[in-house]
């Protein structure tokens, strides 16, 4: 009898435990964009996490040095591949700054229009993935339906869903196709309806709130120190949006608000993106209203390819085409840093020219990298089950994090 009692006491006693190391990824479905997390667990609690990037073998900077300025454009599609047009715009604005030229007014509206559509698709992807990985599969399907509606419009406009390569030095590659504006106006209400469905399904959902509120909290001060930008920074209450702080293109003519969070947790990062979708929707509608007719590309054959009629029919056109294609745009020596508001934050391009047709060097400030580097700080002390929602909410995109 006494032996039995002693045995049961032994079972109740605290078990001696040691930490356990778990590899998450790189090929785990929840590790978006092939990243690896080396997580040290004490029971279910995360003690330490080390993110490891580099599995995509992007080689963006180096590849760019062997391409003409325009040939770099397809590489930028693959930075943040959920909102490629925002990368296209950011990069090409850098080249234009080096050249000291500006694109046409219509092109500026087109860039803002397509850029904001891309921002919506980016946020929809992020929100859908959070829902999916917290078990709300419906949310994911709603978000994907909305995203695909918009990507259909993008592919009609640019010829591709994701690999858009749509901007050009001094303009954009294609104008709105006939009937496209109406198509967009027809599908936007459905997109907003689906976004509303996501809102009603998640925002006041008990389970969702329990899993996200107070999880992965970062203070405003810390977020600034880590170099956060974009929704992750604004979720902590810091009001910094490049579109407002340093307006570019025609953002100064747009009436929109920058939503701000307060607590800097997973929930705030979610709700902020939801609200930004609504603001981007406003900008898209305003672009459609304000957009003037006119050329979509500057008429200067030093930078912009001549019209095909001139290329095939005149020696001047074929020469300009030939030189621009084989040698590239001759960009004067210099270096610039341009920054635009990408879907995840400040997307910066540092471009260096030595006066040739190819970049001397290109570096990217992908907004995802500083945010990813703070991931260990965000998830430390949380349960292993909270890792995935936190990781989702920072919306790391492999293509822009790795260079």
């Amino acid at each position, binding site marked *: 009898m006494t032996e039995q009692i002693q045995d049961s006491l032994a079972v109740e006693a605290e078990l001696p435990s040691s930490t356990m190391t778990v590899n998450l990824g790189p090929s785990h479905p929840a590790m978006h964009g092939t990243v690896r997390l080396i997580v040290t667990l004490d029971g279910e609690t995360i003690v330490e996490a080390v993110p490891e990037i580099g599995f995509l073998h992007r080689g963006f900077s180096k590849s760019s040095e062997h391409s003409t300025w325009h040939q770099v454009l397809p590489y930028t599609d693959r930075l943040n591949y959920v909102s490629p047009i925002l990368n296209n715009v950011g990069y090409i604005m850098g080249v234009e700054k080096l050249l000291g030229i500006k694109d046409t007014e219509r092109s500026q509206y087109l860039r803002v229009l397509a850029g904001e559509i891309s921002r919506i698709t980016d946020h929809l992807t992020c929100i859908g993935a959070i829902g999916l990985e917290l078990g709300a599969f419906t949310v994911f399907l709603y978000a994907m339906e909305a995203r695909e509606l918009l990507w259909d419009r993008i592919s009609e406009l640019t010829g591709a869903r994701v690999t858009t390569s749509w901007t050009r030095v001094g303009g954009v590659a294609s104008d709105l196709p006939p009937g496209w504006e109406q198509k967009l106006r027809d599908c936007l209400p459905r997109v907003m309806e689906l976004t509303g469905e996501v809102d009603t399904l998640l925002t006041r959902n008990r389970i969702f709130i329990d899993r996200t509120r107070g999880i992965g909290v970062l203070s405003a001060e810390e977020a600034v120190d880590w170099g956060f930008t974009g929704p992750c920074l604004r979720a902590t209450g810091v009001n910094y949006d490049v579109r407002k702080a340093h307006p570019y293109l025609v953002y100064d003519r747009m009436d929109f608000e920058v939503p701000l969070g307060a607590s800097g947790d997973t929930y705030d990062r979610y709700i902020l993106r939801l609200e930004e979708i609504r603001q981007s929707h406003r900008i898209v509608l305003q672009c459609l209203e304000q957009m003037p007719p006119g050329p979509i590309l500057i008429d*200067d*054959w*030093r930078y912009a390819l*001549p019209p095909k009629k*001139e290329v*095939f*029919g*005149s*020696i*001047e*056109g*074929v*020469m*300009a085409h*030939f*030189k621009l294609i*084989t040698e590239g745009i*001759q960009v004067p020596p210099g270096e610039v840093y341009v920054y635009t508001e990408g879907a995840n934050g400040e997307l910066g391009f540092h471009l260096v020219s030595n006066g040739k047709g190819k970049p001397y060097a290109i570096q990217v400030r992908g907004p995802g990298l500083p945010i990813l580097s703070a991931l260990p700080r965000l998830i430390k002390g949380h349960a292993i089950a909270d890792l995935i929602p936190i990781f989702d909410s920072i919306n790391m995109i492999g293509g822009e994090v790795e260079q």
Partner: protein
Amino acid sequence: MTKVFVDGREVEADPRDNLIEAARRIGVAIPYFCYHPRLSIAGQCRMCLVETSDAPGRLVPGCQVRVKEGMKVVTSSPAVRDNQRGCMEFHLINHPVDCAICDQSGECKLQDYYMEFDHQPSRIRTSKLNKPKREIFGPLVVYDAERCIMCTRCVRFMDEIAQEPQLAVVDRGSHSLISTFPGQPLDSKYSGNTVDICPVGALLNRDFRFQSRVWFVEKSPAVCTGCANGCNVYLESRGNLIYRLLPRRNEEVNQVWMCDEGRLTHHETNEKRVEQGDLARAIELLRPIAGKPGIGISLSAQCTNEEAAAAFDFGARIGAEKYFFTARLDGDGDDFLIRQDKNPNRRGVELAARAAGVTLHDSVEGIKALVAFRTDGLLLEKPLEVFIAIAQNQGIEGQVTLPCQSVYEQDGSVINYYGRLQRTWPGVPAERGESAPAWSWAERILAGLGIAGAPRSAAAAFDLLGLPGLKLEAIPEEGVVLEQLLPAQWPKRAPRPAGAAR
């Protein structure tokens, strides 16, 4: 020196400089089509017009006006820019839409200047003039009159440099074109240079035409192997093929020219090559007789210095009895760039022989076995017991033939007729079969026979030449003159070293 101001910057110019050359001294490029530093001034293209303090309010041709003390030159004022733009527009009035099918694309002055100075559509609404599209001028040159901008560089070159006036301008105004004389083709031995100096795609090399786009080939320096003059050239290659040879400037060898025969020497590197060789069998054939009497070594004047030095080293190590010197037969020569001796390195082989202390015999006789280092001009009167050939091209085959790299493909050096030691570089990116420099085959045969110590690199073979103070790697791109080899007699017009007596 004469002091002038180009765009406000002071230039110390030679009093004989024209404005183009004066501006070039500080890196200011005045555009021109018809001017050529080695030809007379034509003033045809009007592209080089600039403003000077001597003639305010007027534009003067930069090619024709000489510098004057204190002269102020403006090369990019609105008036100058406007003229340049206008010139380009006029030059292109009758130019066909040919870039896509034109060999000059990518190295065309019209394209370069159009993008720099014009870059806008033409305002001319008349239709373009039709002219002869493919006039065969001669064995190497074809002419497209529609592309011609009448700079007359080719005419002046034939008159002044080749000194065989075979080209002329015929007809007038916009109908004018370049023509040969009736019944007389452009068959000068220097006709290929007219293609090089043609700033547009009017004169084209028939050998290179439609073979490759110019931006696909890689340019590397080389020394022409066509004759003993050793003209400095660029070879342009892709894969294991050489597409064309172009002259490389060397004032003391070939200035900026080369002959047509030399231009075609790359075909030997591209065609009818020996590609595979049975090294093991060569070693087996030599094993029983190595060190015994009756072995001969032959080497040709096409060998690089390193191959020649390695041949003598090989002979010494294997116990060769006799050495034979073979060479290509003499051909036509002249007093400018073409030498009668059609071998690139006769002087080098002789130098290597002296360094090795051996005597060279002319006809192959009195031996039982022969190892031939390149087979050019090799004549065997009766079959030998053992004959191993290290050969570049098919033709003379031994019991074993080992593939030899061409001079254009290997690291090494050659010495021209007046004793200029010049470096050659591997200029063909891809390998051709098992081909290797002859010194490499020699080393591998010896290694197979268990004899160590033979040179294992071009630099090591070069050191056997006994040239104190010289290393292969240290030979400058323009070469060095070996004073002890300088001849007493010079061809009349041949370029020569600065110090050599006139």
